């Protein structure tokens, strides 16, 4: 592998920084302060549950994940269920993160 040079670094950083900045700021700056139709406000309300579910699925689900046997692939799913229980009881992001990492570490390092 060739180490990355400053020239290549600047190209990658500049383009990626501009595209992400546009995605982050344009919708908000264009919509801010406008009277939105009820339909649009309703759609905005569905963005959080839909994106959180998509992020969870993106982390937990991979096609062919069970092809190497049930257990290694089931470990993150079991850890996820534990986090669901902790979330229901504590509603705390911090406790969920701690419980999730501990459960996942135990399930993958100790039990396999």
């Amino acid at each position: 592998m060739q180490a990355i040079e400053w020239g290549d670094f600047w190209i990658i950083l500049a383009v990626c920084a501009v595209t992400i900045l546009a995605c982050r700021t344009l919708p908000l700056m264009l919509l801010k302060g406008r009277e939105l139709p009820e339909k649009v406000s309703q759609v905005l309300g569905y963005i959080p549950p839909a994106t959180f579910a998509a992020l969870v699925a993106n982390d937990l689900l991979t096609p062919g994940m069970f092809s190497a046997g049930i257990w290694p692939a089931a470990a993150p799913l079991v850890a996820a269920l534990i986090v669901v229980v902790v979330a229901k009881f504590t509603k705390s992001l911090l406790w969920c993160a701690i419980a999730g990492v501990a459960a996942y570490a135990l399930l993958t390092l100790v039990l396999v």
Partner: protein
Amino acid sequence: MSGKDTVRASLKAALPIMLGYVAIGIPCGILSDSIGLSWLQCLLMSMLFYSGAGQFMIPNMWLAGSPIASIIASVSLVNTRQMLYSTSLAPRCNNVKRGLAFFFAATVTDESFGVNTMRFESGPWTVQNATLVNVFSQSSWAISTVVGALIGSAIGIPLAIASFAMTSIFICLLVTQKISKENIAAAIAAMVGVYICKLAGLSGAAILIGAIIGIAAAMACSKIGKRA
């Protein structure tokens, strides 16, 4: 809220994100170091680009020998999901000055969007609070990636385990959403959508497409509910 209280409340809200970013920021810096990025380059990336997924993808794709154009295209595609957060947060910024709104929008991540959305809903939470959460989170990320680049591969953090901190945060954000049939439809359809995207080889855009499918399902669900 006084200034001091605002800072304290924001720091408290940002704490889970900050700890999570230490856990994945250090491995990200280590990985960056392995393709020859210096601590200064890590700092520039974390300040100007600030994307966990992106900053892992760049070294991984470079190691795999991908051409620069395809690295840029893939990383930019993955980050298009930011448009959903930006759209969702727009009404919160209605009475906020343009400069602050821009700075707030420019520093949103998956995690800080989630935490701030949760706080805005349970209120009282201001854009000032939310921006501070973003700044604290980004500081933690920037420092952690720099530390990772400086220590190189001196310590091994199992990344799959560290990154489960983020997964856990997303799970908590999901299950603390209001339980309505529209939200349930949104969540299930989004998960199925992500899986189908991955099956179809569209993993780069899976989060964005999956979320849009989820939003569409929720709208369909609310329409059916009205008719019945």
